[in-house]
């Protein structure tokens, strides 16, 4: 079966690398730090792959159903009678899949960083943080206990705080790290309260028992859990919604996404690891982990998941069209794609074909990890080359960076859903699931997929085509084999991951089922995707000032449209006028001032209140005594006359 030692080594190796590099890295290992970190992760990734092989093809399936296997369980604390907090390893299809994703992407990032971060002053610190992050992420996906998952969840937050703030001499990076930490912590507290609610209802913290108790309609736990508790919702609904808030925070769902674009201040490989493939999908993973409870006992909470996901997908895609910082485009794109995964879960049912959405969501998580990590790493190579994040500083790079160009193109095609690349398959399944369950969400998803293709190719053409690249001074090529190897490997994943028969492996109840792709169904999304690509091609492949001129003034558009009725202008009208100016700009504004501004204002106003109440602390001891007396008498009055308790 599964060797405990091997399994524990998977997360422990990165931890070991963190401890070694953290304690001795600066003095002892110096430039070998990268090699040590990468080596540890290589072993870890190898072990994960063998575990996955073992699970999926050798011993995971019993009677045609993939089992949930608790491979390791150490009772940490008997918290109150019957409720114990354990540290354990739970193997089931999604955790095994996540093991592979996390270790693989992390390995790629480790290798890539050997080149990208070379010469950094705190090189070994960087690798130490990467190790810590990988450890916490692996611990998170393997957790067998909802409390354990929370601890690792927080650890992931701390380590991502450290990584985002890695360039600590950049004030924006520090601010971004702090913001990411605080916003996600805000959400995490929702999660924590959710845990308390769920565990008080189910009298357990163990996932398996919890799911079993909260999905059995006859159990006594269920009866108390679904009784209306507060504001008309049952405590189960509250618990699940709070847990989802935690997930939404980490997964950057609207309106808790505000930290994600800022978090791009971290080193680019870190963004590939954290903000593409691992941490941001933790929320999806969490909902997936508790999916039976959501789907069977509380469809209302699942509805919330679905709409939040769909809204985020569309909203982020629209904003992505307006961004000029390439990493920010990718950040919004990530948010949008995670929205896809979320609503796919939201429209899913439980068991067999009903669980199509669940399967599709996990499928998309897998393929997205590949192509989005690739996109970030490719963007990293570009930034490395150009020394700028701005689209306007780029253009015509295809000749200078051929490998990056090709791999980037593959990734763009994959995310746009062009067959037969990976994104096509997973997206089709999601759309199919949405089509069967909720037409509104299906519509949103369809539109979003068109926009996705548009902004991705806008990015692609702006970087690699558009104008000619004028090099300023020395450029050091594409970054050598260590940076190119991960790109090539990931592009293989992005190209071929779609052929993995996911419905045979990862399903909501562990039972494999067959999926059929209806060619007729695929026509609409593929055509929309191609249309998006085509528009981007017309607009951005070569530099043309018509686009700018027309989009800049309304009157300009009318005159030119009246006099020379070109098809280009129709595209332009749709893209620039409608999407960019009418939707994109307001959406971006809304995002920046209302959603983001709310948090900022919260901060500044509490400082203001604090400033205004300072006279309370006047330094006059007699005044203190007066407050004391007033407090005592006031409480007396309140408790005798107002709160008459008898």
């Amino acid at each position, binding site marked *: 079966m599964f060797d405990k030692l091997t399994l524990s080594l998977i997360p422990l190796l990165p931890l070991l690398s963190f401890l070694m590099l953290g304690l001795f890295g600066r003095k002892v290992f110096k430039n070998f730090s990268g090699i040590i970190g990468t080596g540890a992760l290589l072993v870890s990734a190898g072990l994960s792959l063998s575990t996955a092989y073992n699970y999926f093809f050798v011993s995971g399936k019993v009677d045609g159903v993939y089992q949930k296997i608790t491979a390791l369980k150490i009772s940490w604390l008997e918290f109150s009678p019957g409720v114990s907090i354990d540290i354990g390893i739970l193997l089931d299809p999604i955790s095994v899949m996540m093991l592979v994703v996390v270790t693989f992407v992390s390995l790629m990032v480790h290798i890539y960083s050997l080149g990208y971060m070379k010469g950094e002053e705190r090189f070994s610190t960087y690798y130490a943080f990467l190790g810590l992050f990988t450890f916490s992420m692996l611990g998170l996906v393997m957790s067998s206990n909802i409390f354990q998952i929370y601890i690792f969840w927080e650890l992931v937050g701390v380590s991502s705080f450290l990584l985002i703030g890695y360039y600590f001499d950049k004030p924006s990076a520090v601010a971004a790290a702090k913001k990411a930490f605080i916003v996600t912590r805000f959400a995490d507290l929702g999660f924590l309260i959710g845990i308390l609610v769920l565990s008080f209802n189910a009298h357990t913290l163990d996932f398996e028992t919890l799911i079993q108790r909260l999905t059995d309609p006859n159990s006594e736990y269920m009866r108390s859990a679904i009784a209306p508790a507060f504001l008309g919702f049952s405590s189960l609904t509250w618990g699940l919604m709070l847990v989802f808030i935690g997930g939404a925070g980490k997964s950057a769902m609207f309106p808790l996404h505000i930290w994600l674009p800022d978090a791009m201040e971290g080193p680019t490989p870190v963004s590939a690891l954290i903000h593409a493939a691992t941490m941001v999908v933790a929320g999806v993973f969490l909902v997936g982990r508790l999916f039976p409870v959501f789907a069977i006992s509380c469809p209302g909470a699942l509805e919330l998941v679905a709409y939040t996901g769909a809204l985020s997908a569309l909203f982020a895609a629209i904003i992505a069209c307006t961004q000029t910082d390439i990493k920010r485009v990718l950040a919004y794109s990530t948010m949008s794609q995670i929205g896809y995964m979320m609503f796919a879960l939201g429209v899913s049912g439980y068991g067999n074909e009903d669980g199509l959405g669940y399967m599709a969501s996990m499928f998309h998580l897998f393929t997205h990890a590949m192509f989005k990590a690739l996109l970030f790493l490719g963007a990293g190579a570009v930034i490395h080359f150009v020394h700028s994040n701005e689209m306007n500083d780029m253009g015509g790079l295809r000749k200078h960076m051929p490998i990056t160009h090709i791999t980037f193109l593959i990734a763009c095609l994959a995310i746009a859903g062009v067959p037969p690349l990976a994104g096509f398959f997973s997206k089709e399944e999601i759309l199919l699931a949405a089509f069967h369950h909720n037409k509104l969400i299906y519509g949103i998803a369809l539109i979003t997929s068109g926009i996705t293709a548009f902004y991705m190719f806008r990015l692609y053409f702006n970087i690699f085509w558009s104008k000619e690249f004028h090099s300023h001074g020395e450029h050091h090529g594409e970054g050598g084999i260590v940076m190119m190897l991960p790109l090539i490997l990931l592009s293989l994943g992005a190209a071929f991951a779609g052929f993995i028969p996911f419905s045979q492996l990862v399903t909501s109840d562990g039972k494999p089922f067959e999926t059929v792709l209806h060619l007729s169904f695929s026509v609409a999304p593929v055509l929309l995707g191609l249309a998006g690509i085509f528009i981007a091609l017309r607009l951005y492949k070569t530099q043309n000032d018509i686009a700018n001129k027309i989009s800049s003034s309304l009157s300009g558009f009318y005159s030119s449209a009246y006099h020379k009725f070109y098809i280009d202008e129709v595209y332009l009208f749709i893209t620039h006028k409608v999407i960019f100016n009418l939707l994109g700009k307001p959406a971006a504004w809304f995002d920046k001032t209302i959603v983001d501004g709310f948090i900022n204002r919260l901060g500044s106003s509490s400082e203001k209140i604090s400033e205004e109440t*300072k006279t309370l*602390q*006047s*330094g*006059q*001891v*007699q005044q203190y*005594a*007066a407050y004391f*007396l007033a407090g005592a008498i006031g409480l007396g009055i309140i408790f005798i006359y107002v709160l008459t308790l008898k």
Partner: protein
Amino acid sequence: MTEIGLNHILFVSIALFFIGVYGFLTRRNMIMMLMSIELILNSVNLNFIAFNKYLWANKMDGLFFTIFIIAIAAAEAAVAIAIIINLYRSHRSIDVEDASDLKF
């Protein structure tokens, strides 16, 4: 026998207590504040004695409490005066409103 009941004495003690509180809240001289504290403690003593006498004469809890309060009042007053004298040395003032460097 006398008509004077418990409530009469309690009236005196409560009045004395709040006279003390008033002094504590308004006098600027720290020694005066200390004297107000003594009034407060005396009113409490009076309470204890009155309760002991009128209600709970079977035990002597209130009486002993009073004795210990008197002892503690002495200790407290001694320490407070030491502190005030020390403060007077550094501030050249025993005005409580002057001693407000620490604030906000």
